């Protein structure tokens, strides 16, 4: 029997990016806020100091900062004819854990979606015809427009201190920036990072072939910066230990470096760590949440009553908790009815690897997000007539590190071990690089999340089950993008080049990205969405999912974090300015 705690105004499930932003905004408004986090407290000085943060084995291979599958995992299958198997050790994507969530271990790549991404279905139908999209493709317009979200993108980038160069300031094209991006109300808070040799060579080749390269927007800061919360971030030192690592320099934007020092000062905020929410509780009508139940590390169960419940977990676990709590109608892929678990999507990546002649690339001098990029083939930035697919992505070169357990380029045909392997490894390390495409993943009727019938978590609750595979649209797109990238790569004069477009089936053992989206999508129509345009549950008005990637109706050709942060601020404003005055459905 759960022991009941004194009621709070707001309970937040998960203290990552969205949880910490909402906590700060609502605590500032005077509400009593508690955040419940299943992982440990984490801070820079204690958990990733520069004395030992640069440990590839511990953090990148043994995944010390990530969610442990024995605490929570999920099952996976490519299609409904297979039996889903548990992901016993994470490798294809890596959910975070602990205070800071995925904001601790990300690379810092900070992208806005395109204006046309927000009305993608109506845009494509208008340009290419009503019948152009495949029948089983379930993409839909977002319930917010780019123009509405722009001020919130701006706020999140100012929170992070993102480094970059604007390409479009209030409609005026800016030299050196991304000519395809949506309008920006202001320049990036800090100037672009410095570029290494590999990115410089890519940019030259891209220009030579008629493209428009620009520096990748980065939340690894080019210079020290004080954000609007008064928190000071440091300058990136290009150490090459970003993704999968915490930053010891206070230079990578994260809840730790951007929000928590200010948030923790509020006397009306507290955080409970190593405590896992097992259920959202509803009243007898099922239309109002009364709070949450959670279990601490001693196994003791607690009930935390609250007036507002904010679901701020990593995307999968928002979906799982909604299904387990009986909120919203579960999606049925047979009938297409129901919404919770619908429109799971991912990201479609590919690579072109090169070996250059007589170069010293110093690939270990790196950050998670410097690099030179082109956006000519993203979204609908290019004419899709006759191509046989929709969608696209950015492409380019970013040196995120060359940590040697996981990064050791060798020429084609090199044996995997022995004398020849050793020689090739030694001779290629300084000359090998891998260009990448990072592209959209549209949603489909048969790609979804539901509860697994067999496998259970440590509390005996069903694991979430993922059913996902790449569709022809995405594979054709990847082939096209990878060909374009290979054309640019040729202009870099490599001695050897290998183009690897994405091929099916989707393989959960090969790391691609941790950009898992959908399942609790936001929309204008309750029959095709879980949340309304304010990320508020259609069914239970005091539950919000404030911007985690589970709200994306499909995934576009960019990394999700900037949009996640923008939607967090968008939701916080809706709660503060509208919901608190008149609690009830906002739409």
């Amino acid at each position, binding site marked *: 029997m759960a022991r009941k705690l004194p009621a709070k105004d707001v309970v937040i499930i998960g203290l990552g990016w969205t949880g910490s932003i909402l906590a700060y905004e609502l605590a500032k408004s005077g509400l009593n806020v508690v955040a419940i986090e299943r992982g440990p407290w984490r801070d820079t000085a204690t958990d990733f100091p520069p004395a030992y943060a640069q440990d590839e084995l511990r953090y990148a*291979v043994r995944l010390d900062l990530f969610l442990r599958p024995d605490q929570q995992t999920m099952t996976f299958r490519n299609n409904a004819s297979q039996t889903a198997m548990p992901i016993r050790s994470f490798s294809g994507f890596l959910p975070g854990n602990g205070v800071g969530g995925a904001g601790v271990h990300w690379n810092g790549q900070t992208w806005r979606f395109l204006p046309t991404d927000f009305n993608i279905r109506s845009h494509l139908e208008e340009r290419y015809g009503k019948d152009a999209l495949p029948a089983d493709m379930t993409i839909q317009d977002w319930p917010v427009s780019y123009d509405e979200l722009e001020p919130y993108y701006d706020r999140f980038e100012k929170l992070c201190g993102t480094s970059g160069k604007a390409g479009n300031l209030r409609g005026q094209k800016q030299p050196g920036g991304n000519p395809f991006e949506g309008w920006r109300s202001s320049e990036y808070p800090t100037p672009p990072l410095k570029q290494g040799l590999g990115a410089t060579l890519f940019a030259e080749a891209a220009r030579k072939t008629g493209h428009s390269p620009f520096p990748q927007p980065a939340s690894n800061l080019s210079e020290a910066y004080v954000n609007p919360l008064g928190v000071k971030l440091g300058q990136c030192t290009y150490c090459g230990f970003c993704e999968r690592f915490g930053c010891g320099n206070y230079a990578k934007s994260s809840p730790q470096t951007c929000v928590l020092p200010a948030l923790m000062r509020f006397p009306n905020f507290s955080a409970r760590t190593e405590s896992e929410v097992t259920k959202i509780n509803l009243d007898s009508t099922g239309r109002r949440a009364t709070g949450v139940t959670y279990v601490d590390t*001693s196994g003791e169960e607690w009930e935390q009553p609250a007036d507002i419940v904010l679901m701020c977990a990593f995307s999968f676990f928002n979906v799982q908790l909604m299904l387990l709590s009986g909120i919203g109608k579960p999606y049925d892929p047979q009938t297409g009815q129901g919404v919770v678990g619908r429109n799971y999507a991912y990201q479609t990546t590919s690579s072109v690897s090169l070996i250059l002649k007589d170069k010293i690339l110093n690939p270990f001098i790196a950050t998670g997000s410097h690099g030179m990029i082109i956006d000519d083939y993203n979204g609908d930035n290019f004419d899709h007539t006759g191509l046989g697919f929709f969608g696209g992505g950015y492409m380019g070169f970013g040196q995120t590190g060359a940590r040697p357990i996981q990064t050791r380029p060798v020429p084609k045909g090199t044996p995997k071990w022995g004398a020849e392997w050793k020689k090739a490894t030694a001779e290629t390390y300084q000359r090998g690089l891998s260009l990448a495409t990072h592209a959209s993943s549209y949603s489909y009727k048969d790609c979804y999340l539901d509860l697994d019938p067999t496998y259970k978590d440590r509390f005996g609750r069903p694991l979430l089950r993922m059913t996902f595979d790449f569709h022809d649209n995405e594979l054709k797109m990847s082939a096209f993008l990878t060909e374009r990238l290979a054309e640019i790569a040729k202009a870099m004069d490599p001695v050897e080049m290998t183009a690897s477009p994405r091929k099916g089936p989707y393989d959960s053992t090969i790391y691609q990205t941790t950009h898992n989206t959908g399942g609790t999508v936001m929309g204008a129509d309750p029959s095709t969405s879980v949340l309304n345009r304010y990320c508020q549950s259609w069914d239970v008005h005091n539950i919000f999912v404030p911007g985690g990637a589970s709200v994306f109706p499909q995934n576009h050709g960019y990394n999700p974090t900037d949009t996640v942060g923008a939607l967090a601020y968008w939701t916080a404003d809706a709660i503060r300015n509208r919901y608190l005055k008149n609690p009830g459905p906002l739409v």
Partner: protein
Amino acid sequence: MNRNTSSQPSRRFLLASATAFFFVGTGLARARTLGGSLPWEPGTATPPTPVRPGPWLFFTADEAAIVEAAVDRLIPPDNRGPGGKDAGCAVYIDRQLAGPYGRSEGLYTRPPFMAGAATQGYQMPDAPAARYRMGLRALADHIKSNFAGKSFRDLAPEDQDKVLKGLESGSIALKDVKSADFFTLLLGNTQEGFFADPIYGGNRDMAGWKLIGFPGARYDYRDWVERHNEAYPLPPVSIMGRSDWTVRE
């Protein structure tokens, strides 16, 4: 190394502050309520524990002999530097198997165990330590019956390579062990040991890093980002520093 799964009570639990707080659960619970300011206490960091030289912690002497011989064929010594054995790869694997990795600590190990598709990942109940124990025993038996009672260590290097290639391709069938899977595990761990920080027992004297020119656990390249095509001049450094930083008696 892994605070998440430690059964020790946390020393960095509560922070007294101006705010009201309470301690959730019993005295042993690690769940904490934090508020008022950033929680921080000295002496609570979890640096890695350096591997100490000494006897094998997991391998038997016979197992260690096979592994030392095998890692020296997977990464042979040559004029570029030491091989897997002198670089400590077998010591690295031994210490890893004796620790949380060897037990699959933190992984999802609940039944039922069923064969899945390749895209679904490893689905067997055996943890790495058990896989080495079974794999090395099966390999020893195979060598004994195919090479006149010899052990792997006694084979000529060319024969050792032939055996390793047979495991890699799966053409050598081992009893109750998928030879190609076992080879993949052994090769992966050997290369991990060769390129991981020396604090874990392999990459001795930073041999792996010197081979490719990786400067190791350095943390500031600001002056070097734009010095294109210039070789970085400083030698590698490990989390423990460098041997030439240590005062010798």
